[in-house]
């Protein structure tokens, strides 16, 4: 199967400080991919760079191919047609991501006009259909309201409706539930899962919440300090995380069921991009690191069991596999 998006050696620097160190990433049509990592790891920057949405102080290199067409070198007009038309994006704080002085219905219509050429009554009818689809109650009467008249959860539904307006092949959801209350998070995650299934649209779900990613995605990439350090199928990654960082994330997160255990924090903090360690960026915090790790930067390499891994001394696959399976099944 041909990939929908192929990112190769994507690098980003802000004011000369590199923050993304060569990302290779494929998205297959219709698949749900999770991008996990802590703040500053580059998971949002990857996709903002791919769509040319970073501010001017950012320098981007590498290639981003959408079904063979390179977006990095594409003319501005082409890129504008891709944004929202082929690849749509929703963001973390929905209330500030919608324009406060434009009626919400008009914001959806704008996307319909740009990507499907709809205007007038047809556009309005389609916008109302989309608002219904994402679960805005009483859409007809709330079409002409403004953003501040909607709650955070509803604003995120509106963002999703706007993203769907261009009938995209890929939806990038950048921390779409982080700013929302728990019960509303559940609604939005549920909506995203349903929409993806019904519209056979690929989804990239960017989140710091491993558990949320597990619910929405089939495949996961874990990022650390501007690199992908482990990639694999959700079940595989969650049952037997092999990169010490991935493993560390699991041990650091409290659980809601199962036996109570003391959390195992990852010592230290995420490195400053200006003072990145010379070898593996995680080495200073890693309990498995050896002298080798502080000199050699590991490549992301395919493993026999199907995943990709960037670690010289990964967590052995047999280690307490039984225990972990009990915990997560």
């Amino acid at each position, binding site marked *: 199967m041909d990939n929908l998006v192929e990112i190769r050696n994507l690098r980003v620097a802000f004011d000369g400080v590199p923050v993304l160190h060569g990302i290779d990433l494929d998205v297959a049509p219709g698949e749900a991919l999770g991008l996990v990592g802590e703040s500053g790891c580059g998971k949002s920057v990857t996709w903002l760079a791919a769509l040319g949405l970073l501010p001017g102080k950012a320098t981007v290199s590498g290639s981003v191919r959408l079904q063979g067409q390179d977006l990095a070198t594409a003319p501005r007009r082409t890129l504008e047609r891709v944004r929202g038309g082929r690849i749509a994006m929703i963001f973390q704080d929905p209330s*500030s991501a919608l324009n406060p002085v434009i009626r919400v219905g008009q914001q959806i219509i704008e996307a319909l006009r740009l990507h499907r050429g709809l205007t007038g009554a047809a556009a309005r009818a389609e916008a109302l259909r989309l608002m219904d689809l994402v679960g805005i109650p009483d859409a007809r009467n709330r079409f002409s309201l403004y953003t501040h008249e909607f709650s955070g959860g509803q604003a995120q539904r509106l963002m999703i409706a706007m993203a769907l307006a261009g009938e995209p092949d890929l939806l990038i959801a950048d921390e779409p539930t982080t700013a929302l209350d728990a019960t509303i998070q559940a609604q939005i995650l549920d909506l995203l899962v349903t929409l993806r299934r019904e519209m056979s649209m690929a989804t990239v779900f960017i989140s710091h919440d491993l558990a949320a990613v597990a619910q929405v995605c089939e495949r996961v990439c874990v990022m650390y300090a501007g690199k992908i350090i482990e990639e694999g199928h959700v079940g595989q990654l969650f049952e037997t995380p092999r990169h010490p960082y991935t493993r560390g994330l699991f041990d650091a997160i409290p659980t809601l069921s199962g036996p109570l255990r003391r959390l195992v924090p990852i010592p230290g903090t995420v490195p400053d991009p200006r003072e990145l360690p010379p070898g593996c960026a995680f080495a200073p915090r890693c309990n498995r690191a050896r002298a080798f790790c502080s000199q050699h930067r590991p490549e992301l390499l395919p493993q026999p069991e199907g995943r990709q891994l960037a670690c010289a001394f990964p967590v052995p696959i047999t280690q307490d596999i039984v225990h972990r399976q009990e915990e997560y099944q």
Partner: protein
Amino acid sequence: MIRFVTSRLFRAGLTVLSVMTFAFVVLRMSGDPAQVLLGPDVPQNVVQDFRDRWGLDDPIWQQYLSYLRAMLHGDFGLSMRDRSPAIDLVMQRIPATLQLTIPALILQLAFGIPAGIYAALKRGTLADRGVIVTAIVGFTVPSFVLGLLLVLIFAVTLGILPSGGASSWQHAILPVLTMSIGGIGVLARFSRSAMIEVMGQPYIRTASAKGVSWGDVVRNHALPNAAVPIVTIVGFMVGSLIAGAIIVETIFSWPGMGRLLIVSVTNRDLAVVQCILLLVAAVMVVSNLTVDLLYGWLDPRLRQTAPAH
């Protein structure tokens, strides 16, 4: 919306009343008009006659009440100097002042706002820095210095424009320039920061992410949001234009309201001063009211609406 308008109107009324009271108190406290207008050598009975005619010996609160009553009836009193109605004197001068202030305001809007927005969109470039420096110079040089400088260059050295008076349209050029340059600087700087602020907002990224072209992002998504703070500063600038008129009309001997005010203050011509102050206050109040109403129109968050539940 009705609540909004009534509350603003009420506040406007209160402001006008405060200004009237203030004018009354300050002018009564700062010297005896009889002495100033008649001079020190006039016989006592003439002074007394003058005081009786203008009610200057009545208790102060009675003077205040009759003053307010007269104002409410549109009677601004007679000029103490030549006994013609104060309002007529002031009205005669208004067109001349408008001949300066309106072109100045138009220049400020036409150059200040676009320059600021342009600088914001070209942030960090040489063009941006050029705009900032020019703007700072523009609004830090006081208008009397600027006025004299312009006279020195264009009237004295080059001799292409007149240095004072009001007999032709060329006479208006230097005063209008003097009045507008500071405002252009203020407006440019303010528009720039408003636009930079808006361009950094998440909804601008959203608009780009949905495929809106850069020009349309600026026009349709950024400008309507930046308009709210820009309109505020324009409201303030109408006030500062009138203050500027007083100085500029004096420098260029322009026969407007500002010069009338200076002359009347020197002469303690209470009725005329009160009339001008009130008019200035009214202009300020109206421009603030316009700004408030524009706010409601520009920013839906400030309109009262039923909660969406």
